[in-house]
């Protein structure tokens, strides 16, 4: 090299006016940029807060219910049931057959005037029936039983309502017949046409059964394929094909899995419609790739030095995997699995395709029973004629969100807790 070739340059004057101005401009741009980033994060957070707040505001009412204290004069009803019938299995049929429903309606009219039947819920008589079953001696005396109020009265008691309901509620309140309490039915009941009797337990149980199938299938298969792909698979056409399919499956729209379930599980294998087992299979196929990808990343994150160490003392490949890699990758795999399960739990579209969009008033007992799941229940309730379902829908959303947030929190906790840097 030749120093003559190096030309001289005038040194930069960093204190010059122009330079200082330029610097100030650059710092201003810097602040703007940073502010934009902060704004983006805050707005996203604000949206989330707004969403949650909206759901809470309109859904909290769904957890409470308004009740009416209904005086009943059982002897005057002259119900045609014999006391010995009440102890037996046929008690429900006997009471229904004896016209209890009409009698309760009549009692309401007698107690609250002409529109008395409208202030109690359609399922009020079921409450009365249960009370009679619990204490048959009621039939021989007068009693005041607290029954659920009609949705309109509940609306009036908790917020805005139609003027006639407002008036009726005011009258009841003045008469001291109005109480309110926690709506246990909402947590323990199944779907119903009557918002005061509708509950999420049926759908929740359907969700749980479905998730059971999903987890039982997707987890082992996902973990095994992740191990195969990361630790064994030779680099060739076949494994490329497997890899491409898995990556694509992870991004295939969920509704396509619904079409698959419809065509294959229902169409070809003739499995029962609306069954958690079919929903579970469909969702398992959907989240399996999620687990595979998370599993692969977790396996990949185990440092090669651990494998070298094990191989170096003469461990075989299976031993390397099952003694070292898998235990170390497990937290990561679990995180991925929980996130996948959360996604499956919130999924609606594919289940609409396989018939889980049904009115099912009994919680499922088996994997092949007809069932709905929580998000589909929300979808169905959002379309209910009766306005009492608006707050039920939001309340069900709150329950679903509680589950999902809990699962996500668990995943995040696991990730932070076991995130190891080697």
């Amino acid at each position, binding site marked *: *090299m030749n120093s003559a070739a190096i030309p001289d340059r005038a040194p930069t004057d960093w204190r010059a006016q122009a330079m200082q101005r330029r610097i100030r401009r650059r710092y201003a741009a810097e602040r703007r940029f940073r502010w934009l980033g902060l704004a983006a994060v805050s707005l996203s957070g604000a949206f989330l807060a707004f969403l949650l707040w909206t759901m809470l505001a309109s859904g909290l009412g769904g957890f409470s219910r308004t009740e009416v204290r209904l005086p009943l004069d059982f002897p005057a009803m002259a119900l045609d049931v014999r006391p010995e019938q009440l102890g037996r299995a046929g008690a429900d049929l006997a009471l229904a057959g004896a016209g209890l429903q009409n009698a309760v309606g009549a009692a309401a009219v007698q107690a609250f005037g002409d529109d008395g039947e409208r202030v109690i819920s359609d399922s009020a008589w079921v409450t009365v029936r249960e009370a009679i079953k619990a204490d048959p001696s009621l039939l021989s005396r007068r009693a005041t039983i607290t029954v659920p109020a009609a949705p309109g009265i509940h609306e009036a008691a908790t917020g805005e309502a139609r003027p006639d309901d407002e008036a009726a509620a005011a009258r009841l309140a003045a008469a001291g017949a109005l109480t309110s309490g926690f709506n246990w039915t909402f947590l323990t009941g199944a779907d119903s046409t009557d918002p005061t009797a509708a509950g999420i337990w049926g759908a929740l149980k359907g969700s749980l059964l479905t998730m059971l199938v999903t987890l039982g299938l997707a987890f082992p298969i996902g973990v095994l394929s992740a191990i195969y792909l990361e630790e064994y698979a030779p680099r060739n056409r076949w494994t490329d094909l497997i890899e491409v399919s898995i990556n694509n499956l992870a991004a295939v729209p969920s509704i396509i899995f619904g079409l698959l379930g419809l065509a294959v599980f229902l169409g070809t294998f003739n499995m029962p419609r609306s069954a958690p087992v079919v929903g579970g299979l469909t969702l398992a196929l959907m989240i399996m790739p999620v687990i595979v990808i998370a599993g692969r990343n977790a396996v990949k994150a185990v440092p090669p030095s651990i494998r070298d160490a094990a191989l170096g003392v003469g461990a075989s490949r299976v031993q390397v995997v099952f003694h070292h890699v898998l235990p170390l990758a497990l937290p990561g795999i679990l995180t991925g699995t929980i996130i996948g399960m959360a996604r499956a739990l919130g999924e609606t579209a594919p289940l609409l395709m396989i018939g889980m969009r049904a009115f099912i008033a009994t919680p499922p007992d088996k994997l092949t029973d007809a069932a709905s799941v929580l998000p589909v229940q929300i979808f169905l309730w959002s379309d209910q004629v009766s306005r009492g379902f608006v707050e039920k829908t939001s309340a069900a959303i709150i329950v679903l969100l509680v589950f999902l947030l809990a699962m996500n929190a668990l995943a995040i906790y696991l990730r932070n807790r076991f995130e190891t840097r080697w």
Partner: protein
Amino acid sequence: MHAPAPTASPKMSARHVNVFYGRKQAIDDVSIDVDMENVTAFIGPSGCGKSTFLRTLNRMNDTIATARVDGEIRLDGEDIYASDMDVVQLRARVGMVFQKPNPFPKSIYENVAYGPRIHGLAASKADLDRIVEQSLTRAGLWGEVKDRLNDSGTALSGGQQQRLCIARAIAVDPEVILMDEPCSALDPIATAKIEELIHELRGKYAIVIVTHNMQQAARVSQRTAFFHLGTLVEYGVTSEIFTNPRQERTKDYITGRYG
């Protein structure tokens, strides 16, 4: 230790510098002067804090959240850790070349033009072209790349990439150049080229080079500082340090007892 080799008015001077990473102390009470037209070599075993100290000199340690510096470092007498110090300008005045060549994934031209552009050093396109050519020439790379200025900087060989990084650093007209093991990723021939380049550049800048290769330190530097476990064990004229170290630890290290 170890009064720093006395100079009339050093380009940079550090006094009682301590650096901490969180609770861990990485540099312990180091004082040192760096002069213009001189190459200062930092040597020492791995982990002794050479890089850490180097990075305090242009406040690159600011980018590490846990790092905390105290003591005083002056550039032309100005405290670079003073609150009114403008880091952006400081870094333009104290350039840096890293261990692994890190050209931006842009064209060769853009790599060199990057600094002048952000600092607004070029008045016109022609001006910028001139700066780019000058910088590449000074880095001894112009001849090799002048016909492919639009190729990606990452497509060059390792040694060329490192020279590109040097060209990039000198394009903003710095006063001090810090080099952190600039040759450790290079083959012998590329290493020789860089060493030659350091020789040439020496006339215009104050250069600080970290190296783990003692022969290299002996070849390129005028002054050598030996670090050990975060302290500055010995600092002096290179030829003396290598032939006649005053400290036992220095001697052990130079003769290969450890490291």
